[in-house]
């Protein structure tokens, strides 16, 4: 029989996998949509399809994040479970994930800086949101892959 810690750990990994999968879909759709916008392509129907993907993936992400938060509350109620599910390896992996996110953001900024010599980026807000999504996405993906 599996222990409570193991069961909660499996649950957490399952929810994290859901969050990361739909976050990946969201970021991919966001980048494609932003790239079309930058090149001022009249993509008509594709804009609507990408918008629908963004909305659906946001809803699914929200579902998995909510499940994770509820699980987090359950974990917090038991100090022994909380300690085990936040052990030294998990803490180390979270630090590694921060590092990965930092380098992903730096890499993206460098790519945008180089591209800015050839392409005119007129929407600063779109760029800022993309940088945030790259960092947030990399952190979550790294935490999932390191702890799986």
């Amino acid at each position, binding site marked *: 029989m*599996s*222990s409570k*810690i*193991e069961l909660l*750990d499996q649950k957490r990994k399952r929810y994290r996998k859901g969050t990361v999968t739909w976050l990946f879909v969201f970021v991919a759709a966001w980048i494609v949509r932003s790239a079309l916008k930058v090149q001022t392509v009249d993509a008509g129907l594709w804009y609507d399809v990408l918008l629908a993907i963004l909305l659906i993936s946001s809803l699914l992400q929200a579902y998995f994040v909510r499940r994770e938060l509820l699980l987090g509350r359950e974990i917090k109620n038991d100090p*022994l479970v909380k*300690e*085990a*599910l936040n*052990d*030294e*390896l*998990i803490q*180390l992996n979270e630090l590694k994930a921060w590092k990965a996110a930092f380098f992903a953001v730096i890499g993206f900024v460098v790519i945008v800086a180089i591209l800015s010599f050839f392409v005119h980026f007129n929407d600063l807000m779109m760029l800022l949101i993309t940088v945030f999504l790259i960092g947030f996405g990399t952190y979550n993906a790294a935490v999932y892959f390191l*702890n799986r």
Partner: protein
Amino acid sequence: MEEKKLSNTLKIQRTIKNLTQEQLAELVGVTRKTINTVENGVYIPSTYLALKLSKVLEVSVEELFQLNEGG
């Protein structure tokens, strides 16, 4: 300077005590994955965790972890 590699007898000691990775993890307050990565030499535990493991398995830290001269 010669390269030194940390090896361990965690799996052997755990088997002697007739414990699964999951049971040992619960006794020392970590996840099964942490025990698995320590056993496989992927992760080097902190002094705190090493002491906890030696206490639960009733062996000295030196019996659990050894520094081997690498080639």
